[in-house]
C-alpha cells in the first residue's frame, strides 16, 4: 500500500497509455473521430494545433474526464473503464485548464487534496501523504507559500500550486491542459521549465500548448492536430516545416534555428512579403 516510490517514474516500467478508434463528442457535436494515439513513454509530448482542433478534447479523453462515444483509451493494454477509479488516479494525473480553487483554501490544503487516491476513510492523512505534499511543494517552489491562501497568489504562483497538487498525486503520467494560459510571459516560461524538469526527473508528460515556438522548444515529441486529426508527430526538429505551419495554421512563415535551444523557430512572414 505504502510502496509508492518517492520519485515515481524513475526506473519504473514504462506506462502505456493508448487511444484506439477514438470518437469524441460534446452532445451531438463530434470533435474527433477515428483517432489512434499512443503516448510515448518517458517523453515530454506537446500537443498543438489551431483553436477547436480537438487538442484539449483529446487530453480530456486520455485523462478519462471525457467519456469517448466510440473507441477506447487503455492503460497497459486494459481499457480505463476496467480499472477502479482511484487506481487510475494513482498512475495518471491531469490538471485541467481552469480548475476552481475553493474559497479560503491554503496552498498546503490544496496540494493535500492531490493525495485523495492514496487515502481511505480511516487513513485520511498518513505520514507518506505529508511527505509527498512536502516534496511536491518543494519541487514547484511553493513551499514558502504553504500557509497562504490560493486566492491571494499571483497567476504564476497559483499555477505552480495547482501543479504541486497534481504532483502530490505521485503519478508516472502527468497531463497538463494549456498550463500557460492566462500567465504573463515570464511565468509562462517558469511553468514550461518546471514541466521540462519533471520530464528530466523521469515522468511522462503530455502538455497541450498554444504557442508553436514554446512547443517546439520544450517538446521531445510534438503532436500537431488539425480538425480532430493528428497531422504530424515526431521530434520538433524533424517535423516543423514552413509548409506544415502554413497548412495547419494558415500562417505563411519562415523556420529559423532558435539561437538559444537550437529548436525550430517560427517567424511569420512580413505582410509586404506575402
Amino acid at each position, binding site marked *: 500500500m505504502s510502496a509508492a516510490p518517492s520519485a515515481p517514474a524513475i526506473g519504473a516500467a514504462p506506462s502505456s497509455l493508448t487511444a484506439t478508434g477514438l470518437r469524441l463528442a460534446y452532445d451531438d457535436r463530434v470533435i474527433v473521430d477515428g483517432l489512434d494515439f499512443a503516448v510515448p513513454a518517458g517523453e515530454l509530448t506537446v500537443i498543438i494545433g489551431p483553436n477547436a482542433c480537438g487538442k484539449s478534447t483529446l487530453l480530456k479523453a486520455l485523462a478519462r474526464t471525457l467519456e469517448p462515444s466510440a473507441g477506447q483509451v487503455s492503460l497497459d493494454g486494459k481499457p480505463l473503464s476496467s480499472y477502479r477509479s482511484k487506481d487510475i488516479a*494513482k498512475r495518471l494525473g491531469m490538471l485541467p485548464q*481552469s*480548475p*476552481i480553487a475553493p474559497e*479560503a483554501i491554503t496552498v498546503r490544503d490544496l496540494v493535500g487534496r492531490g493525495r*485523495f487516491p492514496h487515502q481511505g476513510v480511516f487513513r485520511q492523512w498518513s*505520514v507518506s501523504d505529508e511527505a509527498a505534499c512536502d516534496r511536491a511543494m518543494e519541487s514547484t*517552489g511553493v513551499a514558502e507559500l504553504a500557509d497562504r491562501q490560493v486566492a491571494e497568489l499571483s497567476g504564476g504562483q497559483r499555477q505552480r500550486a495547482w501543479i504541486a497538487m497534481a504532483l502530490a498525486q505521485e503519478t508516472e503520467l502527468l497531463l497538463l491542459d494549456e498550463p500557460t494560459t492566462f500567465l504573463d510571459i515570464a511565468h509562462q516560461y517558469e511553468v514550461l521549465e518546471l514541466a521540462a524538469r519533471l520530464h528530466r526527473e523521469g515522468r511522462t508528460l503530455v502538455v497541450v500548448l498554444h504557442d508553436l515556438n514554446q512547443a517546439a522548444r520544450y517538446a521531445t515529441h510534438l503532436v500537431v492536430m488539425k480538425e480532430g486529426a493528428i497531422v504530424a508527430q515526431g521530434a520538433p526538429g524533424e517535423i516543423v516545416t514552413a509548409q506544415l505551419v502554413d497548412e495547419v495554421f494558415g500562417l505563411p512563415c519562415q523556420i529559423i534555428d532558435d539561437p538559444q535551444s537550437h529548436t525550430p523557430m517560427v517567424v511569420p512572414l512580413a505582410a509586404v512579403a506575402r
Partner: protein
Amino acid sequence: MSAEGSRPGIAPDAALSSTATRRPVVRVGSWLSLPYRRRSVVVGGILAVGVLLLALLTLTLGTLGIPLTELPAAIASPKPGRTEFVLNVLRGPRLVTAIGTGAALGVAGALFQTVTRNPLGSPDVIGLGAGASAGAACFGLLLPGILPVPAGALVGALVAMGLVWLGTGRGFSSPGRMILVGIAVSAMAVAFVQYVMTRVNQQEATTLAAYISGTLADRDWGDATEIWVAVIVLVPFALLLGRRLDLVEMGDDVADSLGGRSSLTRTLVVLVAIGLGTAAVAATGPISFVALTAPQVARRLAKAPGAGILLSALFGAVILMAADLLVQQSPFGAQLPVGLLTAMVGGVYLGYLLLREWKKGTI
C-alpha cells in the same frame, strides 16, 4: 523579456517567508489518521456549548419552566405532575425536534451549497419546501382523510424532487439545470397552494398557513424520533461523502482525475440532502432559511474550505433553537410558527448575501 534557456524555477516574490504550520492529525498506528483544524474544533466546542445552554434555557425559562435545581431529578426520574408534563409533552419533544431539524437543515444546506458551488443553493431553492406545502395543502384540505398532513407534506416534497429529477434530463448531476427546473417546480407548487386557499374556508386556510410556514408547536416524541432517525442515518453518510465532495468543489475535471467520480458523488450528495430536507419537512413543515444561512455562517466562523458538515449541523441547531426560544417566550405565544421568525431574519440575511455577491460582481 529575453527567453533564456534556463531560468530559476522560483519567482522573486515567492521568497516571502511564512511560518510553516502543519495540520494536526490524530494517529493510531498506521491504520488510522484523521486530520483536523484547531479553529474548527474550537468553533464546534463553542457551538456545542451554545446548544446545551439554549436547551437549558428552553426548559427552564418562563412561568411553566422547570427550575434549574429540579431539572436533573426531573430528567432522571420523572414523576407525574406539572414538571413531567412540561418535560414530556410541552417542551421536551419540541426541543429535541428543534435540535434534530436544525441539524438536518444545516447539513442539507451545506451539501447543496457545495455541490452547486453557490451560496444560494439550498433544498428550498429547488422546490422542496414549496412541494411540501403543496402536499400539505392537497392532503390536509383538498382531499382530507387520505393521509395525515405531515405524510402529505412528505409526498409533496418527494413529488417535487421527482419532477426536478425528470425536468433536468440529467438527474441530479447538473446543478445549474437543477436550480432552473427547481424554480419552475416551486412556482407551480405555490400556484397550487394558492388555488387550494381559494377553495377552502377562512379558518382552514389559517391552519394551513401556519403549517406551511413551518412550526415546532405541539411536536410529540414521534416527530422527534422521526427526525433523529434521519439525522443518525444520513449525517454519517454525508460525512463519508464529504471528502469526495471537497474534490467536486475544485471542478469536475479535477475531481474525476483524482478518482473522485464527480457525477456519482453529486447525485449521492443531492439524494442525502433531499433525504434530510424531506425528513425536516415531515417533522415540522417547511422552515425556511435555516438551510441557507447555517452553512454560510459556519464557513465564515471556521475560515476553512470544504462543506463544513458538522459545524453546519451545530449551527443549524443553534439557529432553530434560538428562534424557537424567542417564539416560546414571545408575547404572541408559543403557537406562533417559528418559520415566520426564521424567514424574517433569513430574509434580511439573504438581502445582505445578495448585496455582497453583487459587490463582488458574481451576480
